[in-house]
C-alpha cells in the first residue's frame, strides 16, 4: 500500500478523525487530508510520525524485486477490463478450478 492508504488505515484502526490526528501530531488536518488524497506525498519520517500518533508503527521488510513483474502485468490486464468483465472471468476461472479439483478427486 502507498502512503495515503496507510494513513487512512492507521487512522481508522485508531478510530480518530483527521482533526484528532492533527491535534496529536501537530500536523494541520488540512495537510493530513492532502496526504490521504495523494495531493501531497509525505516524507517517510512524517508518515511514520503520523502512524505513531495513531498508536501504531510501520514495519518493513526488504525483499527482492520480481524481475519479471508478473503480478504487475496481470493486474494491468485486469484494470483494462470493466468490473463486470473482471468478475465474469474470475468466476469462470473458479468454475474451471473446481471442475479440475473434482476431476482429480474422482480419479484418486
Amino acid at each position: 500500500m502507498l502512503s495515503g492508504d496507510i494513513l487512512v488505515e492507521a487512522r481508522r484502526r485508531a478510530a480518530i478523525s483527521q482533526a484528532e490526528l492533527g491535534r496529536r501530531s501537530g500536523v494541520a488536518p488540512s495537510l493530513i487530508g492532502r496526504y490521504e488524497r495523494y495531493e501531497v506525498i509525505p516524507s517517510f519520517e512524517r508518515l511514520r510520525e503520523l502512524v505513531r500518533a495513531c498508536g501504531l508503527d510501520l514495519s518493513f521488510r526488504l525483499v527482492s524485486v520480481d524481475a519479471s513483474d508478473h503480478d504487475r502485468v496481470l493486474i494491468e490486464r485486469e484494470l483494462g477490463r470493466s468490473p463486470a468483465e473482471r468478475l465474469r472471468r474470475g468466476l469462470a476461472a473458479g468454475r474451471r478450478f473446481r471442475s479440475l479439483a473434482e476431476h482429480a478427486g474422482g480419479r484418486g
Partner: protein
Amino acid sequence: MAEADPLEILRALERQDVSYILIGAAAARIAGVPVVTEDVDVTPASNRENLERLAAALRELGARLRTSTDPEGVSFPVDAEMLASADMWTLTTSAGDLDIHFTPAGTRGYDDLRREASRERLARGLTVAVASLRDVIRSKEAAGRDKDIAQLPLLRRTLEQIREHERKPPELER
C-alpha cells in the same frame, strides 16, 4: 442442481431490495485483483426490515446450511429472527455458495463498509454495492487466516497500481 451462477444470487438480493455490500474475493476481483473466485460473500444491513427482505431472497434461492458432510446442505428456518441469531452464515443455494457476514473482521459491518463502497454494473440490469479494495484489505488483514494473508501482497499491489492510475503528479515533501 443447475450450474452455479453467483450473479443469480445477487439478482435475488436485488429483486428483494436487500441492502447489502458485496465483499471478499468477488469484491477484490471487481476492483481488479487477479484472483479466482467461486462464491459470493455479502454484508447485509442488520435492521429488522432488511433481515425480512434477506430471508425472502434466501427462500427464493432455496438456501440451506453448507456442511462438509452433506453436499445438498441442511435445511433451517429461513426467517429474520433466525438470521439475527448469528453473525455469520455459510450457505449453499440453487445458484451457488453464499456466505453472509454481518460484521466482517476488522469492520463494523454494513454502515462502515457503505462509506467507501461503489455501485458497479455487473450485468444487464444488475448494479450492486461493492466494498472498496481498501476495506477488503482491512478485513483480510484482521481475519488473519492463512488464505487471507497469502492474498494480501497481491491485493496491496493492485491498490498501488490503482492509485498510480488515479493520481495526478503529487507534490513531494522535502
